[in-house]
């Protein structure tokens, strides 16, 4: 007998599931519209910028809120299984649960990456054509590339965080609420609340516009910011995988 079902089969199954529910299409549309429109408006409203990466950062402004759509789809990939009862079919077909969660995560992260690349490219073009920068906004500028790259990776990680929170909490409302609080609400609230400890805590939350001081948050250097986001996504994912293995369906 062969060694079993290849991982690619499970991944294809999860990709099929992702695209056979309406919510994925809606979330894609919302994300594209929100990020694209905000990027075009922000770039058009910014006549000049000192540095090319600043112009690009301004155009990427829509990612902050837009990523909530990706978070929701990541959460739903897991919670909808438990809410509808389809987890029984899924886990009978794929009884190796960590493998299943990994396939879900790769499918969601792949979808987020595609969207992130397309939208980041769009925002780059908006900044290049609509904002005047001394020397222009060149696609080969390392600072510009780093800004775009950070945003694209953070986009994939928010999907991973959604899947992870869904696996931990199993409740759509609970996971979306916790996720939104972590990435969007708490960082600026804590940063603005004043005390030194609140600022430090704010820096330790997964702020999705890594290395930038948008949304009144406390700025961190980009390696620290990326490390924090990745640690949250991976940490929550590991907890989710352990709980998925342990709990009854």
């Amino acid at each position, binding site marked *: 007998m062969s060694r*079993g*079902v290849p991982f690619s089969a499970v991944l294809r*199954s999860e990709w*099929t*599931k992702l695209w056979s*529910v309406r919510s994925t299409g809606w979330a894609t549309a919302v994300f594209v519209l929100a990020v694209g429109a905000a990027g075009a408006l922000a770039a058009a409203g910014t006549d000049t910028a000192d540095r090319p990466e600043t112009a690009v950062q301004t155009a990427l402004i829509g990612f902050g809120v837009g990523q909530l759509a990706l978070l929701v789809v990541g959460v739903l990939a897991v919670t909808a299984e438990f809410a509808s009862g389809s987890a029984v079919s899924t886990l009978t*077909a*794929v009884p190796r649960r960590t493998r299943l969660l990994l396939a879900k995560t790769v499918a969601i992260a792949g979808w987020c990456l595609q969207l992130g690349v397309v939208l980041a490219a769009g925002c780059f073009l908006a900044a290049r054509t609509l904002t005047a920068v001394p020397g222009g906004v060149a696609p080969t500028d390392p600072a510009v590339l780093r800004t775009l790259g950070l945003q694209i990776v953070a986009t994939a990680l928010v999907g991973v965080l959604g899947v992870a929170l869904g696996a931990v909490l199993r409740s759509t409302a609970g996971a979306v609420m916790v996720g939104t609080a972590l990435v969007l609400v708490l960082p600026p609230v804590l940063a603005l609340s004043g005390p030194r400890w609140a600022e430090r805590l704010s820096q330790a939350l997964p702020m999705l516009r890594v290395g930038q001081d948008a949304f009144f948050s406390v700025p961190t250097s980009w390696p620290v910011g990326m490390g924090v986001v990745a640690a949250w996504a991976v940490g929550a994912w590991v907890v989710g995988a352990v709980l998925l293995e342990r709990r*009854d369906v």
Partner: protein
Amino acid sequence: MLSPVIEVVALTKEYRSRVAVSDLTVTIHPGRVTGFLGPNGSGKTTTMRCILGLTRPTSGTTRVLGRPYRELAHPMRRVGALIDPRARHPGRTAYAHLLALARSNALPAHRVDDVVELVGLGSVAHERVRGFSLGMGQRLGLAAALLGDPDVLLLDEPVNGLDPEGIRWVRELLRDLADEGRTVLVSSHLMSEMEDTADHLVVLGRGRLLADVPMQDLLGAHSAVRVRSPQAPVLAAALQRAGATIELQIDGSLRVEGLDPDQVGDVAFLSGVRVHELTRVTASLEAAYLGLTGDEVEYRAAVP
């Protein structure tokens, strides 16, 4: 006898407030339909979920084809399961639901078309399952179970919600699958559903094993002889001397347990008693089943 395909050893599953399955040991063999019977709440579904690795036992082990279910290399090619007819996303089409399942086990996509036609859902395959009735849900669940053309089938209440034509179709399907040498375990809380289908019965009550018997034995154990005679008192006395248990029926006939019809006829002849009727009465399985489970019903309506 062929070696067991499903082995349940000392299985116990406790929830916070109650014991769902208690020290259950049973084996299920191939080539026959095994009926898994018991009242509501007797632990049938919990046992099946433990076998499929969906529920973690408190203690004890379950094995399918010699290994824990979670370690099967191609789960859907080996085992087909129907646990819950609502186990699907309401926003997905029947076809997409089955396609996702097929892909997860690297089954060819044409299997989806095959099983959709087999269960009679061809006309609604591309509709979202939100609008499906319970019976259509059962058909979809059966389609999913049959996708991998599995050696073992575990079906929890598969005919629940089906129309009479659907029930007959499921019976014939299970019969055919068992005749092909596959292992079929099918649960029900209704004995009548099992009468024409099962070859072997495993009966649970309050999570414990009440019976693990061939269908014929259960029938034989509860069969009787009905005899009518104008000299009933004389015959009754003679039969009692021969060791039978006699019960006078409301129409004046005697219900005789403990002797077969030949013996009853012989006793009557030797006693010089005229006999007007002599019939074997096969106990309805329902009665046999109620006899077994009478004291083991978890939920019982109050008698006013």
